[in-house]
């Protein structure tokens, strides 16, 4: 049934429909509304047979999840930003132990400087932790992906992160189709764990593995993610069969057939770009968009196939590998090796900086004329940075960059007087 509903709330409802048995989380913006929603559903009795646990930290949250999942309970948690980093050790552990936990990331920047707004740095920091990472483009998809995530996780016995843009999605009111319990039950069978702590059938989980077998353990994890490349689209198809809409899968391709320029991106910004693309196509520009849903596993072949006939690829991402450039771009370039297609990197929207249609259009124009730098920072305040750089060149100790820039923007800086 369609509802005009806040993204977080829609996700909470779909989590509940997936019948988790244990939910644990520690509050951090912008994830809070999701767990608040879950908590309400448990307390109100709408979600039965579910333990809702308020833990003392994100580290504790995922640890509780590890315990309950290992005991055969369908388990959910959610976090963001600093929280994800704080639980990093457990993030690796959960995948290492092969526990099918589902975790929402309300994507948010990482400090310092502390910043509660949206970008993808948090998810990217855990991209190699062995979890599957699915990025939602809309709130509808965020809701749907959680239902799929449990199925994927439990099929593979691997944990899944569902990443949705903080505030932009989590706090936005949209029209979302919340499926019925019957349909969800039809789609998502009860959890049949691959291993479970059970006195009737005891064994030891989490042994110390030395050089003689560690490589093999890791190889098998990689192999499993390769298998996920088949399973994710399969399950997306099953999903469509039951719910009648496209959601999830590996990538979403928009007007790629004849595209000479293709923008590759992750998450909610794809919608904004599509509007720009439509407008530019009216002006005869052959542009398309490919938004990646499954960042881990990374669908190399699919992406290569989708992009290899284009003239240029622009990876627009909300993350920055400081000292290198794009994180997503790096992965895309790997996939494009030998095709000769030029891959540009555009870093945008860090720390919640709005990604506006005008700037996007301007950028694409430049790209169309092959004038785009290999690494572009969208809407970077050149003036401000230049001044700071000048100051740094002038003296070693110029105070914290962040504060200087703030001073600039507030116009308090002596240099301006």
């Amino acid at each position, binding site marked *: 049934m369609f509802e005009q509903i806040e993204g977080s709330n829609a996700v909470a409802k779909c989590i509940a429909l997936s*019948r988790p048995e244990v939910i644990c989380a520690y509050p951090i913006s912008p994830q809070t509304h999701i767990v608040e929603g879950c908590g309400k559903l448990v307390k109100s009795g709408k*979600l*039965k047979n579910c333990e809702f646990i308020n833990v003392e930290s994100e580290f504790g949250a995922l640890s509780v999840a590890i315990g309950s999942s290992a005991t055969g309970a369908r388990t959910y948690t959610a976090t963001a930003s600093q929280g994800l980093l704080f639980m990093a050790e457990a993030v690796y552990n959960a995948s*290492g132990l092969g526990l099918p936990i589902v975790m929402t990331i309300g994507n948010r920047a990482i400090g310092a400087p502390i910043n509660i707004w949206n970008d993808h740095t948090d998810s990217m920091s855990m991209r190699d932790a062995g979890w599957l990472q699915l990025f939602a483009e809309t709130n509808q998809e965020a809701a749907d992906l959680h239902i799929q995530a449990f199925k994927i996780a439990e099929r593979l016995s691997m944990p899944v992160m569902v990443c949705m843009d903080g505030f932009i999605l989590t706090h936005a009111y949209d029209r979302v189709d919340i499926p019925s319990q019957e349909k969800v039950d039809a789609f998502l069978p*009860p959890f049949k764990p*691959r291993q*479970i702590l059970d006195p009737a059938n005891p064994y030891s*989980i989490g042994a110390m593995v030395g050089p003689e077998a560690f490589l093999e353990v890791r190889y098998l994890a990689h192999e499993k993610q390769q298998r996920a490349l088949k399973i994710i689209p399969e399950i997306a198809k099953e999903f469509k069969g039951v719910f009648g809409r496209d959601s999830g899968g590996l990538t979403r391709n928009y007007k790629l057939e004849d595209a000479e320029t293709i923008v590759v991106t992750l998450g909610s910004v794809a919608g904004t770009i599509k509007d720009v693309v439509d407008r530019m196509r009216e002006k005869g520009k052959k542009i398309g968009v490919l938004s990646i849903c499954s960042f881990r596993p990374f669908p190399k072949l699919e992406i290569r196939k989708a992009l290899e006939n284009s003239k240029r690829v622009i990876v627009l991402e909300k993350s920055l590998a400081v000292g290198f450039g794009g994180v997503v771009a790096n992965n895309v370039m790997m996939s494009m090796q030998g095709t000769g297609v030029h891959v540009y990197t555009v870093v945008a929207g860090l720390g919640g900086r709005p990604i506006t249609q005008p700037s996007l259009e301007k950028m694409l124009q430049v790209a169309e004329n092959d004038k785009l730098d290999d690494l572009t920072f969208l809407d970077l305040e050149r003036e401000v940075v230049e001044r700071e750089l000048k100051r740094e060149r002038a003296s070693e100790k110029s105070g914290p960059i962040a504060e200087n820039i703030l001073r600039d923007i507030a116009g308090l800086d002596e240099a301006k007087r």
Partner: protein
Amino acid sequence: MEEKEKLTPKKDIEKDLKNIKKPFAITLDVGSSLANETGSWRTERPVYLDRLPPCNNACPAGENIQAWLYLAEEKDYEGAFQEIMKNNPMPATHGRACYHPCETACNRKDVDTAVNIHAVERFIGDQAIEHRWIPKHDAKPSNKTVLIIGAGPSGLSAAYHLTRSGHKVTIYEAGPVAGGMMSFGIPAYRLPRNIIEAEVKRILDTGIELKLNHKVENIEHEMKAGKFDACFLAIGAHLAKRIDIPTPDTSKILDAAGVLREMETGKNPPKLGRRVVVYGGGDTAVDVARTAKRLGAEETIIVYRSGPGQMKAHDFEVREALEEGVKLNWLSTIKEMDASGSIKVEKMELGDDGYPKPTGKFETIEADSMVLALGQNVDTSFIKKIPGIKIADNVVEVNSSMMTGYPGLFAGGDMVPSERTITVAVGHGKKAAREIDAWLSGKTYKPLPKHELASFDKLNKWYYTDAPITVQPQLQTVRRQTTFEEVLGGLDGSNALYEARRCLSCGNCFECDNCYGVCPDNAVIKLGPGKRFKFNYDYCKGCGVCVKECPCGAIKMEPEEI
């Protein structure tokens, strides 16, 4: 939401769990570490052993005291009795009259106080008499006959043990009753006669012939006459030592042995008068003094030439005597006694060498009679005749197997060189019996090698609770001064049990499960009640914790051969 229940088919899940494919390497099957035999780490290995408990080591009768205490602490008193009977046929007697060197040796004295072993033995002995328990033995007849001369403790002991090993035994006793020094040396208030009678009877009932009032003059002759294959000589030492004390009236001077014998055999008790002086410092002196008190003497004085420290009598005897009003007059020598009965005494003083020296100072004590308790001699008159027999300072010499110079003639008890106690005598009887048994079959008896001693330092005291000795009740002094009732009471069931359980089981496993419990590697295998334990050397790493934590020192470490 109700449909959830039916949508969660728990059964399916359970079924699925059975064929789980577990993740590689990180998930392991339980108990798989048994494949890793850590025994190879070991440089030393623990081994169980039995050590010799000090009580057993000290017992002249060679009783396995720890063993019968072990049974007693399980309330198996008959079992305990049978265990005692393997070595000593007279527990009730020894529980009273033995000077219990076992308790002097007991390790428990260093925890709190020694185990009251004799009290428990007495309890068991009395139980045996009360319930008419009889010793078990299963020896087939050897068709050999042995003559035993003297029905004292060693004679009876030898007879008992020879019978147990299948020989036919006959005892010739010169006196009118069996018991020897048990009857003639130890007063009834310490050792009631019914006890002796009961235990002697129990011995004889094993099939021993006893001839009383049969004084042997010629051993060779007697042996031929009775076709005896061997003879054990145990006539004791009954001749009182005398010294020459000038006196007009010798009738006033008696000897201790005589007095005590007369108490047993005479129609009416010896007349000692109102004031009695006993001369001597041994147990006999004290016994006579206490007897005199009981016979109604108003004043009984023990005169002893040396100081209290030098008295041979056991402290408890002296203490009880004093309680009963006996006076002690030490550092005095008796010079003479006149017709009126006044005794001239010279005071002595201890010289630097610790020996008493005359002072030339004199005093007099009035007495109706004077009893000399200066020790006894063996009546060697008829022994002298036997060829090959050697006698040195009034005792018969025997070799290591207790045989005299005359083949087949063995001797023991007070008449051979040794401490003169009934327990030593019983020990002699047992040893002689073993030697004779071997000699009769042309062998020589080889005693088993002794285990190393379980000294106090081998114990882990922490595991034992403090448990002070149970004190035996005593008769009120008044009655002790007037009657011959037994002075010391016995234990009852509960405190005999308590007392038995004070035993530390020095040097021998009592299955406390410590080693089994404290092994960090579960390398001790418990074999079940009575079967003790064994080490699983496949896994024992040789840490030695079991050795340190064994309360009784029944484990030791040995280096591994590499």
